[in-house]
């Protein structure tokens, strides 16, 4: 595969490899110890619905904490500053609270085995199939893209061969998922969660010391902000400057941010994505399932300090590498010269912000731990995708369309085959990504269109009993089409027509790509919402009897099975929301 001619940035030593080997032994050991727990398909796909909430809660965020999250949030930290925490405080926490309090009673209570299966119970087969097929495709591609990013990063940073890093991580994830099914994936996700925390916490601590504390960091970043034509505090305040897209580094105004990111995209992901919801479905009781996303929200709200701060620090320390800024190098064009944007400024290779921090601040020993933490984030994301894929494939596609009415052993066997196939397909996707980057951009765009309207369908399905299967299906298709049309008619300033939009002629220009993304989502959601209502009213509703347990007004309120008031989901939710609000005020 492609190998860069340049020498690796750093060489690992024996102690670093020893740390990595111990981690590999631990994840494989967990899989081995769990090899006897997967006797039925429910064990394999849903952990027999038997895990305590702290385990499912930590797995809930860990499955989402793939390498793209760790690297990407560091990159955004360097690009947008502390405003990146909106992806957590606006873009995750409220949706996590909502799914726990209001939606989990239907997912868990309906005994659906997957999110698409809930759509089947609530609406009809075609809505389920549409969701299942797009979801299955998306998991494979996102797993492949993240594999590609990781292989490339390790090649650049450590000089590892692209093929070997992909093969080794694929074989390890495959082994532990095959051995222990979802339980093994979830247990390892919790282990990986702790490893990521322990790998990055000292990085942030050392980085803050190097930058001269928060004051030193703010002072240095206000120089950067001024140089980029923004108000002084643009990188260290999350809300100041959100009044207009021109006065904040994100390039979005507050309404687009709150509605697009905070409502449509965030609720669409956290409330309907089977990758995360599957973790809560594995919980041992309804109360545990409802507490899963709430427990997950507690560490999640603090993650900005773990993954975003390294990116900000990388911009502020080191005195500027040749051609770059801070310790972030410039992005190189094909010929080896630094890339320059429309305004004549050098484009930084932001994805290297967090990896360069590891290399810059960690000595041998800790460096091994940091690299292992990166590997762990990569593997937890991959295992999350694979376990969600094998379940949706087996239950929602294979069992409902290809072979009905087989024995449980048959589906268990199919699940194992799907696990192997899922990993092989992700590896193939990684190689496609390395050969044709544009195809991957295009696919991601298509999946974004498919995902944007999803929450409208689920919200209407759960809270409006009159909504029908035809309505839901029509709404989803119309929402996706609306997203494509809106994207095709708009373009971000500085972007060129093509995969970035504008292919139907540019009618409107957004100040940034994020603003365009958020507004595309808003348009898709509203279209889906309206079309679902209109078509539902024109089609025959299902009798109330069939909707019991699937719709809010026809389901008895959940009775919390807890020993004390402190364990009540509603109490936990209130604590989470107050803390998140406080964090927002702290970084106003």
């Amino acid at each position, binding site marked *: 595969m492609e190998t860069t001619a340049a020498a690796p940035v750093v060489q690992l030593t024996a*102690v670093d490899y020893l740390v990595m080997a111990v981690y590999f032994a631990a994840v494989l050991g*967990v899989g081995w110890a769990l090899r006897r727990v997967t006797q039925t398909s429910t064990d394999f796909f849903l952990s*027999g619905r038997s895990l305590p909430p702290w385990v499912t809660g930590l797995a809930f965020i860990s499955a989402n904490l793939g390498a793209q999250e760790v690297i990407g949030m560091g990159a955004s930290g360097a690009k947008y500053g502390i405003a990146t925490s909106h992806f957590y405080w606006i873009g995750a926490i409220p949706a996590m609270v909502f799914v726990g309090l209001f939606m989990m009673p239907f997912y868990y209570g309906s005994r659906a085995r997957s999110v698409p299966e809930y759509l089947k119970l609530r609406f009809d087969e075609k809505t389920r199939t549409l969701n299942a097929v797009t979801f299955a495709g998306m998991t494979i591609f996102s797993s492949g893209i993240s594999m590609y990013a990781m292989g490339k990063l390790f090649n650049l940073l450590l000089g590892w061969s692209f093929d070997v890093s992909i093969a080794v991580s694929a074989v390890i994830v495959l082994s532990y998922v095959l051995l222990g099914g979802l339980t093994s994936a979830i*247990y390892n996700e919790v*282990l990986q969660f702790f490893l990521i925390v322990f790998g990055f916490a000292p990085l942030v601590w050392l980085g803050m010391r*190097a930058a001269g504390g928060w004051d030193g960091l703010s002072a240095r970043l206000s120089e950067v902000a001024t140089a980029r034509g923004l108000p002084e505090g643009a990188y260290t305040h999350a809300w100041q400057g959100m009044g207009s897209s021109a006065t904040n580094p994100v390039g979005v105004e507050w309404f687009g941010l709150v509605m697009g990111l905070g409502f449509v995209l965030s609720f669409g992901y956290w409330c309907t994505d089977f990758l995360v919801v599957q973790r809560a479905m594995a919980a041992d009781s309804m109360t545990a399932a409802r507490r899963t996303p709430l427990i997950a929200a507690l560490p999640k709200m603090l993650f900005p300090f773990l993954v975003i701060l390294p990116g900000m620090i990388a911009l502020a320390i080191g005195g500027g590498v040749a051609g770059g800024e801070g310790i972030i190098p410039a992005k190189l064009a094909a010929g080896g010269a630094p890339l320059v944007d429309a305004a004549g400024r050098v484009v930084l290779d932001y994805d290297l912000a967090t990896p360069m921090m590891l290399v810059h601040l960690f000595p041998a020993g800790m460096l091994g731990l940091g690299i292992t933490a990166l590997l762990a984030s990569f593997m937890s994301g991959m295992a999350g995708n694979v376990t969600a894929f094998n379940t949706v494939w087996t239950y929602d596609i294979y069992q409902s369309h290809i072979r009905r009415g087989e024995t449980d052993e048959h589906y268990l066997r199919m699940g194992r085959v799907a696990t192997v196939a899922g990993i092989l397909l992700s590896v193939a996707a990684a190689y496609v990504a390395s050969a044709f980057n544009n195809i991957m951009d295009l696919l991601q765009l298509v999946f974004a269109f498919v995902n944007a309207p999803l929450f409208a369908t689920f919200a209407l399905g759960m809270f409006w009993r009159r909504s029908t299967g035809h309505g839901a299906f029509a709404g989803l298709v119309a929402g996706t089409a609306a997203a494509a049309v809106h994207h095709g008619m708009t373009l971000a300033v500085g972007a060129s027509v093509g995969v970035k939009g504008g292919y139907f002629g540019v009618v409107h220009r957004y100040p940034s790509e994020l603003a365009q993304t958020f507004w595309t989502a808003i348009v898709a959601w509203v279209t889906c919402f309206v079309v679902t209502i209109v078509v539902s009213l024109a089609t025959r509703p299902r009798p109330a009897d069939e909707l019991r347990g699937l719709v809010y007004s026809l389901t008895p309120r959940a009775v919390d099975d807890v020993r004390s008031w402190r364990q009540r989901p509603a109490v936990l939710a209130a604590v989470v929301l107050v803390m998140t609000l406080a964090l927002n005020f702290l970084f106003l």
Partner: protein
Amino acid sequence: MSGATRGLDLRLPIGGLFAVLGVIVGGYGLATAGDAALYERSLTINVNLWWGAVMLAFGALLLVLARRAPRGTVRPAEESPEGRATEAREKRSGLEK
């Protein structure tokens, strides 16, 4: 539906992992104490030594907690009221035989 207990207290492997990592990283920090060139990057702090100690303490704590926990605290779905109710629903709707 099998209500078998999961057979593995998760605190054991996590505790074990961090205890071993603590010993390795901390031990390396001890062995390299005073190596100014190595710790120049980390602002002359022997980060291996003290972070190794933190990991060892965390690992040991989890191991102790796991040892002291009563066995079989994991509850199968059948034991909770809503578990039984939904299981009945599942049978009615034909999801599970």
